[in-house]
C-alpha cells in the first residue's frame, strides 16, 4: 500500500476538455462511476454501505485481492466472482484509493458522501498502466580485456523486431578489446536490437524536463556522468536529439541496469566484470504534467575489466490521458 502514495493519477472531475482536444487520444473514461445510491431499509441509521464493482479491461476482477483505503485506513478485500465487494461504514464522506497490481493504474477518488442507511454502488475500472511502445535501438557494446568468445541472450518482454547482426537464439561471437565483434565472418561494432514493448505509464515520477536548446549540454553532461565513452555518447545523441528537437521541451527518465529488465533481460556468458545498461524513456513535455516530477539520480557505469555497455530508449506518445500527475 505504500506504493499508493507515489502513484497519482488524475481525478475524474478535473477538466476533461484538455484531454479530448487531442484527436489521437482515445475517449477518456473516468476510472470510477457512482452507479446508484439507494436507501436500504435493512440498514441502521448509523450504518452505510458501499458496493464496489471492480473490473479491469472490461472483465470483472474476481479471485484477486484488491488493496483499498478509505480516509487513510487500509484494507485488503476479495471481490466475489462478479468482481463485487461490500464495505460497511458509518455515514459520512470518504476518499478511496484502489490498487489492483503494478500493471494497472491506481485509482484515487474524490470525497464521496454516503447518507445514513444508504447503499452506494460504485463501479471501479482499473486501466492498464502499460503503454505499448517500441524499445528503439538498444545497442550493445562489448569490451573484453582480451579477445574472447562471448554469448549474449536477450529475454525481451515483448516482441523482438529488427536485430543486426541477426539474433538467432542469441548472439555468439568473438569480441576484441577495441569493441569490434566478429560474427559469421563479418565485423560489427555493436549488437543492435529493437522490440515492441511496454512502458509503465507512471514512468515520469522522476526525471528531467529539458528545453530544446539545452538538449546537447544536458546529454553531454549526463552521458559523461554515466561513464559512456565519446563514441557511445555520440551515437546516443545523434540518434535521439534530431527527434527530440521537434519538441519545445522533452520530459526524460532514465532506467538503469535492473530497471532495464522490464524491457529485456540480458544474459552474458562469460559474465562480464561490469554491465552497464541505460534506457531512456522520453515524451513531449507538452503531453505530460511534470509539476510533481522529482529529479532523478544518475547511475554510473564501471568500466574496469570485461565491460558491456548498452543504451536504448523509447518515445512515448499519446499518453496525456494517463500521464497527468497531480
Amino acid at each position: 500500500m505504500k506504493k499508493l502514495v507515489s502513484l497519482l493519477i488524475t481525478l475524474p472531475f478535473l477538466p476533461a476538455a484538455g484531454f479530448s482536444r487531442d484527436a489521437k487520444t482515445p475517449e477518456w473514461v473516468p476510472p470510477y462511476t457512482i452507479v446508484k445510491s439507494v436507501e436500504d431499509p435493512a440498514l441502521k441509521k448509523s450504518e452505510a454501505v458501499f458496493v464496489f464493482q471492480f473490473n479491469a479491461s472490461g472483465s470483472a476482477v474476481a479471485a484477486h485481492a484488491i488493496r483499498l483505503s478509505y480516509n487513510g485506513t487500509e484494507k485488503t478485500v476479495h471481490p466475489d466472482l462478479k468482481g463485487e465487494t461490500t464495505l460497511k461504514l458509518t455515514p459520512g464522506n470518504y476518499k478511496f484509493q484502489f490498487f489492483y497490481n503494478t500493471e494497472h493504474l491506481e485509482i484515487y477518488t474524490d470525497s464521496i458522501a454516503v447518507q445514513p442507511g444508504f447503499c452506494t454502488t460504485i463501479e471501479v475500472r482499473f486501466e492498464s498502466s502499460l503503454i505499448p511502445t517500441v524499445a528503439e535501438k538498444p545497442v550493445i557494446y562489448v569490451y573484453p580485456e582480451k579477445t574472447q568468445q562471448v554469448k549474449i541472450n536477450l529475454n525481451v518482454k515483448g516482441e523482438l523486431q529488427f536485430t543486426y547482426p541477426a539474433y538467432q537464439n542469441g548472439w555468439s561471437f568473438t569480441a576484441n578489446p577495441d569493441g569490434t565483434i566478429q560474427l559469421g565472418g563479418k565485423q560489427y561494432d555493436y549488437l543492435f536490437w529493437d522490440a515492441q514493448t511496454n512502458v509503465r505509464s507512471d514512468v515520469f515520477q522522476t526525471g528531467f524536463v529539458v528545453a530544446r536548446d539545452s538538449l546537447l549540454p544536458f546529454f553531454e553532461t549526463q552521458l559523461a556522468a554515466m561513464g559512456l565513452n565519446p563514441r557511445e555518447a555520440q551515437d546516443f545523441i545523434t540518434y535521439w536529439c534530431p527527434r527530440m528537437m521537434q519538441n519545445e521541451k522533452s520530459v526524460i527518465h532514465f532506467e538503469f541496469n535492473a530497471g532495464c529488465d522490464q524491457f529485456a533481460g540480458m544474459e552474458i556468458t562469460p559474465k562480464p566484470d561490469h554491465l552497464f545498461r541505460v534506457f531512456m524513456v522520453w515524451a513531449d513535455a507538452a503531453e505530460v504534467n511534470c509539476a510533481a516530477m522529482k529529479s532523478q539520480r544518475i547511475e554510473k557505469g564501471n568500466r574496469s575489466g570485461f565491460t558491456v555497455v548498452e543504451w536504448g530508449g523509447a518515445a512515448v506518445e499519446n499518453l496525456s490521458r494517463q500521464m497527468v500527475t497531480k
Partner: protein
Amino acid sequence: MKNTFLSVLVLLFAAPSFAEQGDTGKSPQSFFVRETVADPTLKKNESVFVFKFKINDFAVTDSIQLSDNGKAKKVKPDDAGMVTLTVKPGKHKFQFFANSFFFEVYTDSVEIKPRYRTSADVIFQSAIHEQISDKPVIYVYPETTKNISVLLDVKGTLGFSYPQYNGGWDFTADPNGTICMNGKQYDYLFWDGATTVNLSTTKLQDGFLVKKNELIPFFEDKLSAMGLSPREMNDFITYWCPRMQANESSFVHFEFNSGYESVSTMQITPKPDNLFRMYMIWGDAAGLQDVTFTPQHLEKVTRSGFTVVEWGGTELKNIPQELVFTK
C-alpha cells in the same frame, strides 16, 4: 526533351481512376479537355487545339516544349497562358514540358474532327518534393593526424548538427577516424536538414525494389560493393533498416557524389585525396509491384590517401507515384 520526358500517362477524362487508387501518390489531373466545338471558319482539313498552360492557378507565359505525335516544337504562350495550335484532323498524342522543376505532361491519344476546336487545360505539377535529409554522417580519415575544416552548404535548411556546426567544422582528425573538436572527441560529423528532391530529374526507377526480409543481405551486398567499411555499413544498416522494415517492400535509389550536390555540397580543407558521398532515396513500394526497376550502377569509394566518406538519405512520403514511376 527526349530523355527528360517521364513516361507518365495522363488519362483523358480519367481523373476518377486516380482517385480510386487510395491515399498513396494521388496525382492531380494534368490534362483536362474543357470543350470541343465545331468551328465553321476553319478549312476542311484543319482543326485547332487551344491549350491553356497553368501552374496552380497561374498562367504559364514562358516557352513550352510541345510534342505532337512525336514532332517537337517550342511554343510561346500569350499573357493568358494560351497557345493555339492548328493541326490536321485525327488522333494526336501530346507531350508538354515547361522546365525540370515540373513533371512533364503526357496525354493519351486525343481525337479531333475536321473543323473542330478543342480547348484544353494543361496543368504542370511541381516535381520538387520537400523532405528531411536524415542523418548524413561524415567520416574523416586523414593519412596523418591533421587539422581539417569542413564547410557544408545545405540546399535547404540545416537542422540538427553534432558536433555543432557553427559556420563550419574545424577539428583535428586521426587516421582511425577519431575527430577532436573543442576538447571533445567524436567519431563522425552529423547533420540533418530540410531539403528537396526533384522527382522529375531523379531517376528513381534506376534502382531496386527490396522486400522486407531481403533488406539486410541487400545492403550488405550493395554497401560492400560501394566499399564502405564495416563500421560505416553497421551505422547505415542499423539506422535505416528498422524504419524500412515497416514496409512490405521498399524502393531504393542511390545518388553518388555529384548526384548528392542537389542536397548539399561540401568544401574540405585540405582537399582530401578521395571523397565519397552516397545518398539513399527510398520509400514504401506499396502500389509499385508492376514497376520494373533497372538495377543502377553503384559507385565505389577509393580508400587511398586522405579519405572522406559521407552517407545520408531520405524517405520519400506521399509522392505522386503515377507521375514518378512507369509501369
